[in-house]
């Protein structure tokens, strides 16, 4: 009975988008509330809710919590969890975009070296102030530049006679990732300050530990804008899966579309990596699971991937701070541990 009901909701024939979206929104909210409480110092979920409500105007009641709890919930965990949602959603969407761009389910910002490219320029900007003219956003902009350069390089290198060649795609991704990582190491070793090594390690392994409220604004704005742009192009993304020529015959300006997708993917990857370092394989795993749930239509894949990506990163981050507590494991290491086998499985099962 119950099973039938579940099958009805997650039905490949007619995925009920309303129910799936509402369910995912509820799960996202619950994930945020519960994950805030979990950590080296645990806070009861009810206390978390009380602290959050106390921030609402006109709802001042007596405080049942300690100042430490307040600081942990409001100052540390909430921005971190929210950042996890945004980062997860952005990385999942970046994966969807790159997969449509290169017409391959193995595309992911981490696998194709985009994360490495963004880290390299981000480190360059951070240690040598190479992009300091951009002020507060110099880190995000430098990461965006690195991401864009890498995507354009990989995309150009993997096109053989106007088609994306999968072997070229993966190998050029690996080669560029290695080059960019080498660049990052060179930059850190020649860094003028001692912080360099520590920070570069952060970029390479990925972590949400340093989250602050101030980190949220730009990634959130970028994610929302990119999502709106992509949703407006969902038919074009679908058509693109049939190939450039077919998309052209369906009335889409393929050249302009490719440029738009490169821009969107670079923006999402760059801004995300600037705040969280490179967290790999989210863009690979989440869209794949999404397609198993709701099919390949981008109208459904985009929103569901975003929500699933957010939920996935929030809980992986919980694991990252619990596994060897009170020490922290960078979340990127955990996602690589899960994502690596997933990638190999995909490689082996799909042609």
């Amino acid at each position, binding site marked *: 009975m119950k099973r039938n009901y579940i099958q009805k909701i997650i039905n490949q024939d007619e995925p009920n988008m309303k129910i799936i979206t509402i369910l995912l929104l509820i799960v996202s909210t619950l994930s945020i509330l519960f994950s805030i409480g979990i950590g080296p110092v645990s806070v009861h979920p009810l206390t978390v809710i009380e602290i959050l409500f106390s921030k609402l105007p006109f709802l001042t009641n007596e405080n049942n919590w300690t100042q430490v709890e307040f600081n942990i919930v409001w100052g540390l965990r909430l921005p971190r969890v929210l950042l996890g949602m945004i980062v997860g959603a952005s990385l999942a969407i970046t994966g969807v975009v790159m*997969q449509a761009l290169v017409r391959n389910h193995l595309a992911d910002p981490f696998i194709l070296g985009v994360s490495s490219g963004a880290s390299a320029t981000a480190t360059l900007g951070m240690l040598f102030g190479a992009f300091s003219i951009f002020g507060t956003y110099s880190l995000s902009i430098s990461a965006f530049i690195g991401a864009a350069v890498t995507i354009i390089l990989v995309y150009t290198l993997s096109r053989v006679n106007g088609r994306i060649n999968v072997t070229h795609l993966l190998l050029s991704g690996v080669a560029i990732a290695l080059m960019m990582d080498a660049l990052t190491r060179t930059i850190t070793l020649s860094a003028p300050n001692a912080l360099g090594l520590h920070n570069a390690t952060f970029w390479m392994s990925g972590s949400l530990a340093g989250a602050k409220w101030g980190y949220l604004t730009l990634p959130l704005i970028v994610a929302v804008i990119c999502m709106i742009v992509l949703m407006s192009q969902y*038919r074009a993304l679908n058509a693109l899966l049939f190939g450039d020529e077919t998309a052209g*015959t369906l009335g889409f300006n393929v050249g302009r579309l490719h440029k738009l997708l490169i821009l969107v993917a670079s923006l999402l990857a760059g801004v995300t990596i600037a705040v969280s370092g490179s967290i790999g394989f989210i863009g690979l795993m989440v869209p794949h699971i999404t397609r198993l749930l709701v099919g390949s239509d981008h109208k459904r894949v985009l929103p569901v991937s975003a929500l699933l990506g957010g939920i996935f990163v929030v809980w992986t981050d919980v694991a990252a701070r619990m596994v060897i507590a009170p020490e922290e494991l960078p979340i990127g290491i955990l996602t690589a541990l899960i994502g690596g086998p997933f990638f190999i499985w995909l490689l082996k099962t799909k042609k």
Partner: protein
Amino acid sequence: MVIKNKEVGEKLKLLVENLNFSLNEKQIIEDMNLYVSKGEFVGIIGPNGSGKSTLLKNLYRGLKPDSGVVFLDGENVYKMNPKAVAKKIGVVGQENVIPFDFKVEEIVAMGRSPYKGFFDGDSKKDKEIVANAIEQIGMSVMEKRNYINLSGGEKQRVLLGRVLAQQTDLLLLDEPTNHLDIQHQLQIFDLIKGLGVTVLSAIHDLNLAALYCDRLYVVKDGRILMAGTPEEVLTSQSIYEIYGVRSDVAIHPTTKKVTITYLPVSLLEGDN
């Protein structure tokens, strides 16, 4: 040359003038001229690598010619915006592999793309058109099936369904029955012929071309070698010129169409 005679212009669906295309400094299409009148079923035949696909790609803007003009209903195709072209030309090309699976109805519904703006969902009218297209290709019972699990013939029918949903009155087809068995070859061509729209199609099989086409263009080494009705073009002499193959050409008593029997060298030598 511009279309001087307005009357002729009105009957023409497609007019190609002095088309040239080269890739990596190799001339693939050389000074081609051709036309397709409204309602005509025109075939392009010729050996492998002669430039049939490249010609079609130049017509539907998959490739950009070095020079030459393509008029669609008297309008220069290269000056039209992509959506306007997509409302007039439906294309079934050789691309039919997709990285992710879609349902039959989802693929057919993609044919509505040129009529849709940003954020537009599928209207009731779109759904009707899609359902009709699916019925025309005889796949109503399979509309929820996944494309990747379909047979070659079924896939080709789905792609045709997508073009039907696009509601264009000109179809450009690149060997639409390639790799299909005889039953499905005839099924697809019967379906296309039954639509009553203007068709320009590259066709590999000369007997099929003779059965369905009003006129044929013969393409060899990037040039148009001959043009005319199947009776005019398909003679044993011209077939030898085009393919270097001996053949026996006759009018079939039942179909009243040209029918070609190839005469392999091994058999001819046996006779002597």
